């Protein structure tokens, strides 16, 4: 019997018992859809995290005051609002903000593998432009080091240069979305009553740690308006490493060095050294575990679907006993009879997989919508990214896997069919 004819007979048998076939398929559809939407959710969030953290730069290490003993990772924010990550209720110095000093800066500079160091101060200050005011984050940076390290590019104007006085580079949203009128290049804004000239406007970065809402000024000028940070202190220190591949090593080295100069040990540590990579790794590992767990639950529903296929196929073998007898009397071999049933269960698996991916697509679209509205925009313009992602690999895997599942589930029923004695099969009523 040619395979094409086996296909025809299997497809006809499938069509004969429409309702039962579709119910069996439904079991697979649910399982596949669950697995697909869970995996797509995890792929999507990973992609968002990667792209959001990409704004920090792969070769940048941030040192911030405070240390969160619970995770050891997320202590201290970036340069934005003051770090909330202190605590753990150990020594009193731990909760103190802005306690990184020029001594720490010098120590970090001496660590091998460090290329540049930028001591930063920041605070939220009153800004006004054309009689309109707002409270925004102002960052004082080392002009040379910042220019080296920033991942933001200029929309217009220039970066800061050494020797700059009261000048500012502003983020795209500050320029375009905060004040009634757009802030123009070379216009003047006031920070805490002091005039600053806008010399550069940055491109939108659309990510965390991005600069869309920031006003960046030279650190010397910043110290004249930020009063919350003592003259020899910093809010955070950004470090650029020589080799992005050895970020983890350098992160550890900086940490050891600072523990030495600050006279703290692992238990009294009062600062956090983090890199985009380390944050990403720990978020990914949490997400990975979580989605593996959920995919495991979804896989159980697939297993139930597979048992459904086996059940339907056993029933089909019973009902078609007479047909099997006829086929065998007319010369069909055991192997061909086996193929006949395996193909039918593979069809169930394949259709289940196709529909499952389709339903999974819709479900993950809905999750994406709900997720975005619950979490809100991740980063200033982050809303354009989907929380879920269905990759071609995922689609291929889902369809391939469910077809395999169909074949495996059909194995035992098909074997039973092939072993039927022709005489017994023909007698069957």
């Amino acid at each position, binding site marked *: *019997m*040619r395979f094409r*004819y086996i296909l025809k007979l299997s497809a*006809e*048998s499938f069509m*004969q018992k429409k309702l039962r076939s579709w119910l069996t398929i439904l079991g697979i559809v649910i399982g596949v859809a669950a697995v697909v939407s869970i995996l797509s959710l995890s792929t999507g969030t990973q992609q968002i995290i990667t792209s959001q953290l990409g704004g920090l730069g792969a070769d940048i290490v941030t040192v911030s005051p405070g240390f969160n003993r619970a995770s050891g990772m997320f202590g201290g924010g970036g340069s934005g609002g003051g770090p909330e990550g202190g605590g753990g209720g150990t020594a009193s110095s731990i909760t103190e903000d802005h306690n990184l000093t020029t001594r720490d800066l010098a120590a970090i500079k001496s660590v091998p593998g460090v290329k540049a160091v930028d001591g930063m101060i920041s605070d939220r200050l009153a800004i006004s432009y054309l009689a309109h005011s707002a409270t925004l984050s102002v960052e004082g940076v080392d002009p040379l080091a910042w220019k080296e390290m920033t991942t933001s590019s200029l929309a217009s104007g220039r970066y800061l240069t050494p020797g700059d006085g009261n000048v500012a580079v502003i983020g795209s949203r500050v320029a375009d979305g905060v004040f009634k009128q757009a802030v123009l290049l070379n216009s003047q804004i006031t920070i805490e009553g002091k005039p600053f000239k806008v010399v550069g406007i940055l491109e939108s970065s659309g990510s965390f740690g991005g600069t869309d809402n920031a006003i960046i000024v030279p650190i010397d000028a910043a110290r004249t308006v930020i009063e919350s940070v003592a003259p020899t202190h910093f809010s955070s220190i950004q470090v650029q490493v020589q080799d992005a591949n050895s970020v983890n090593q350098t992160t550890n080295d900086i940490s050891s060095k600072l523990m030495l100069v600050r006279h703290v040990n692992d238990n009294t540590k009062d600062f956090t050294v983090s890199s985009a990579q380390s944050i990403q790794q720990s978020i990914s590992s949490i997400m990975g575990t979580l989605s593996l767990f959920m995919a495991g639950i979804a896989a159980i529903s697939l297993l139930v679907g597979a048992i459904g296929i086996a059940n339907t196929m056993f029933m089909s073998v019973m009902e078609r006993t*007479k*047909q099997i*007898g*006829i*086929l*065998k*009397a*007319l*010369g*069909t*071999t*055991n*192997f*061909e009879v086996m193929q006949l049933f395996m193909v039918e269960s593979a069809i169930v698996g394949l259709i289940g997989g196709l529909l499952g991916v389709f339903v999974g697509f819709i479900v993950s679209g809905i999750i994406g919508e709900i997720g975005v509205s619950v979490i809100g925009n991740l980063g200033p313009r982050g809303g354009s990214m989907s929380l879920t992602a269905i990759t071609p690999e995922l689609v291929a895997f889902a369809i391939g896997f469910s077809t395999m599942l169909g074949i495996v589930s059909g194995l035992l029923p098909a074997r039973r069919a092939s072993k039927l*004695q*022709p*005489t017994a099969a*023909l007698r069957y009523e």
Partner: protein
Amino acid sequence: MPEANEKTVIELKNVSKVYQMGEVEVSALKNINMKVEMGEFVVVMGPSGSGKSTLMNLIGCLDIPTEGKIFLETHDISKLSESQLARIRGSRIGFIFQFFNLYPTLSVIENVELPMRIHNYDERKIRGKSLELLKMVGLQNRNDHLPSQLSGGEMQRVAIARALSTEPSMILADEPTGNIDSKTSQEIMQFFKKLHTEKNETIIIVTHDQSVAKYAQRIIHLKDGQIKEGG
């Protein structure tokens, strides 16, 4: 080796068949010896329970004997593998059953084509051959009907067309008139006779129907699993 010449279609030598029914052994056939030559028209007669269907299953290679040997043409069927036996059975023997046994989801013409498809006949020749056979049995207008839409006599004629499609060396029929009225039975038997006289087909019919006997060239009487006469 048997004394079979090329003209022997089937030969049974000292064949017995015992069915195991749990603890009980049922001896359905006892030491059967028979031989059918090419072109013969043989009817096996016997009362119900005499072992006719068992004999027909053995002749048709659908089952294997408990003892003895069966030769289909020149093949010792006990020496064939499962798939070889399936192929030979399907192509060399044309089966006709009491309950027709048409494939229910296939149309009339697809049923006639089924053996040719099982045996990988040239795709271009299949349709023509089956149209020709359906015309011969007088069912050319029912090609696309399903078996369930036909009368008993019509179904049996489809079965005959199907049995002839692979040009087998014998037609083997078990109670072919058992499920149709007597008038139609006579038509079917006339048809077998015509196949025998005009096409020189080898025909073996197993039946308890006395009216079938008169068409036979040779009658084998079976009783309690033994041949009484004509073997």
